[in-house]
């Protein structure tokens, strides 16, 4: 190699990486600020003080140990459903079926627990079986969408959404039918798994272990997507399927694998909803975590590590909802208005990528 600088000119290498990295943070952050400003206008129109609103979010989400725990508790499923959107997004699939995979996973865990609890099976073994069932059930659901996409060219966004309805209907069918606990009069549910089989809190906190599972998976999936050949192949496929095929990459298998990871993450979130929160499967599982996860993943730009802080932010929004409702006399849906606004502004801001000169050193010289 004669001279490695022959082909390069202009700005140094580190600057390029640094500025390109900055762009990934600056644009979503800017979108958040713009959404907050727009939402302030909305609040002013309602005759409310925006500053009070944001102060209450701080207070309800982060100001005390209690509120932080509350925030983290709500962030736990969002990390998992955020990952469920981000992994298939990397390979170019817009899968919005995490809600269905969560519900089906939670239901599968609750259903398999019924005979195990009756038989008084060992606790750890029961938990393990429940986890496996939850993750497999979720994975199966999303793999159907992945397979339809690859083998039949069916739009995975539509199919994953429709599969969500099927998943919810399936749960309802069993919960209101043969798996219904006779004692659940007003709200049809499966038989409770009982406190002995529930997942406890992380020592010293009230936050359940689902948060730890989310953190571990976020790190693992980050390494999987960015530091392994599997992740590289998935990113190539997501970036340009034609080039991936021309390189002989097993596109079909990669798509199925990413779909499976997606469903497994959401299914695991469903497991924790059952095993740590509700203790049984019922309509409460359909809480919208799967859909908020889409927003989380978008704001995190599909980066598994960035999903963690973003999920915590949305956990805080969720946690402060009650407080805002009481103190500001705003309806419960106010937070959803803010979330919707963030989503719209975020999608708009995506078009700025690559357009801002500062982040593109060395171009056009």
């Amino acid at each position, binding site marked *: 190699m004669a001279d490695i600088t022959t*082909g390069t000119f202009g700005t140094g290498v580190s600057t390029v990486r640094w500025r390109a990295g900055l762009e990934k943070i600056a644009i979503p952050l800017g979108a958040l600020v713009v959404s907050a400003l727009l939402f302030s206008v909305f609040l002013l129109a309602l005759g409310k003080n925006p500053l009070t609103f944001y102060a209450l979010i701080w207070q309800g989400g982060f100001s005390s140990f209690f509120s932080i725990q509350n925030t983290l508790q709500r962030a736990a499923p969002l990390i998992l459903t955020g990952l469920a959107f981000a992994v298939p997004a990397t390979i170019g699939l817009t899968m919005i079926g995490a809600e269905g995979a969560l519900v089906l996973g939670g239901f599968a865990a609750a259903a398999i627990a019924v005979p195990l609890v009756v038989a008084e099976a060992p606790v750890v073994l029961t938990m393990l079986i429940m986890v496996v069932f939850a993750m497999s059930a979720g994975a199966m659901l999303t793999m159907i969408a992945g397979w339809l996409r690859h083998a039949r060219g069916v739009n995975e966004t539509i199919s994953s959404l429709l599969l969500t309805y099927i998943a919810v209907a399936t749960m309802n069918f069993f919960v209101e039918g043969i798996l219904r606990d006779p004692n659940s009069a007003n709200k049809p549910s499966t038989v409770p798994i009982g406190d002995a089989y529930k997942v406890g809190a992380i020592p010293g906190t009230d936050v359940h272990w689902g948060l730890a599972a989310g953190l571990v998976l976020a790190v693992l999936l980050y390494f999987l997507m960015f530091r392994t050949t599997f*992740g590289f192949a998935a990113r190539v496929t997501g970036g*340009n399927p034609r080039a991936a095929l021309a390189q002989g990459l097993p596109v079909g298998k990669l798509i199925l694998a990413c779909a499976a990871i997606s469903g497994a993450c959401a299914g695991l979130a469903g497991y924790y909803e059952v095993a740590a929160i509700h203790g049984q499967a019922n309509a409460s599982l359909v809480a919208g975590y799967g859909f908020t996860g889409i927003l989380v993943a978008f704001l995190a730009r599909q980066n598994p590590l960035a999903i963690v802080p973003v999920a915590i932010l949305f956990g805080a929004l969720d946690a402060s909802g009650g407080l805002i409702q009481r103190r500001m006399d705003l309806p419960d849906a106010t937070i959803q208005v803010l979330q919707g606004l963030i989503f719209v502004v975020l999608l708009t801001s995506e078009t700025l990528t690559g357009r801002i000169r500062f982040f593109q050193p060395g171009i056009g010289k």
Partner: protein
Amino acid sequence: MNTVAPLTAARGLALETVGMTKIFGSLVALDDVSISIKPGEFHALLGENGAGKSTLVKCIMGFYQPTKGALIVDGVKQTIATPSAARDAGIGMVYQHFTLVPCLTAAENMVISRSDVPVVINWAKEIKALEAFMDRMPFRVRLDVPVSSLSAGEKQKLEILKQLYLDQRFLILDEPTSVLTPAEADEILGLLHDMAKRGEITVLMITHKFREVTAFSDTVSVLRRGKMVGGGKVSEITIDEMSRMMIGETVIRKSAGRVADVKSKTHLELTAVYVDDNEGMPAVEAVDLRVHGGEIVGIAGVSGNGQSELVEALSGQRPLKDGRIFINGKPFEATRNDYDKFKVFGLPEEPLRNAAVRRMSVAENIALRSFDKPPVAGLGWWLKPSAMRAKATELIGTYRIKTPSPDTPIENLSGGNVQRAVLARELSGDVKVLIVANPCFGLDFASVAEIRAQIIDQRNRGAAVLLVSEDLDEILELSDRVAVMSGGRITHIAPIAQADRNTIGKYMAGH
């Protein structure tokens, strides 16, 4: 055709640009360009890709507003703000690719392109008017069949007729012959040349083919890097001079000499290959072809005769419907294992579409072939970005890829440099079989020469090379044997020594 009455009143327009300048950010795309075209002149605009030809035309057509400079049409200074203003001024453009609605008939296409289409169209009256119009034209196209059933040459004629029907007397043609067979190209340019000679129209034709300049144009302007570098009467300039003006001082790599009788054991064989297109219609039928090591087999043909489907099938982007591919007598499938086992590489057309991932970095794109093998992959699955960057930095040097850094997204590079990065990836190893498709489309002279030299080089080293190209000159320059593909079949095959342009042209046209 001599009895054709001259067009009523309508005459070719004169057009002049004065100091036309267009600046995009820090890029000066067009720098003080003044050209003057007299009524009835056939003017060629010559230049490499990126020389500013399209920018100049887009300024004339109102797609861009020039940063500086003026446009004078028939002696009157005009400000063309939008393409419809250009139409009102009598300036029409025929694009490189068709802009007709395929499911409508020629008559319908022409009528709906008018700016004054009535709410209810009296078709009987319109057809009558169109027939009368056609009678005054030197060439005609059937009015009552859907455009999709017309040949490429007829479609191009229709595009031109449409402009004349709209009474556009200054015609801009953007590389009008790229979708035509040589015979069709000659016919259409000949007719336009005659019309211009009679003063009925004025023509400005963008081209990079010298032959079209010398055979049909009266005057020529040459652009290089946004600047006007020369021009004048075609009869007073030699091809050598034009070529020097276009290329400037750039050193063009001399093609490595063709080594005779390369010894190689490699051979690629296609037997009874069938491939379907996106609609499930047969695109490639019963193709049998054998390519030996140390040989380039060029497949010529008009775009859309199954070549791209064939290449896609060979490169795993499209399933084979039937037939087999063998390399050295062993069955080959377009999987990563077989690519590595048989050392099959490819230079596909439009690299950003087929061979590179836009958002990924130059280093990652260079690693597409090697990311799952040592030294980039440890343990078979763990990526080592440092090894990836080291390899990329080395290849960026040897292949002179101009990039701010190995970490720059490849979409930020120029077309030539993207192709160079692909070249570095595909040709830096041991190559036994090479599949090449339109490798030089849209590139500058220096890159074209470089890429062609590299292909010859691989051939000399014993690789079996299959070259598919829509550029007949490229096929004739590079190939040892020439095949012609028409209607999805190989209709003609001949050693280069026996190949002649006319015969090939006839087979390309499907005769």
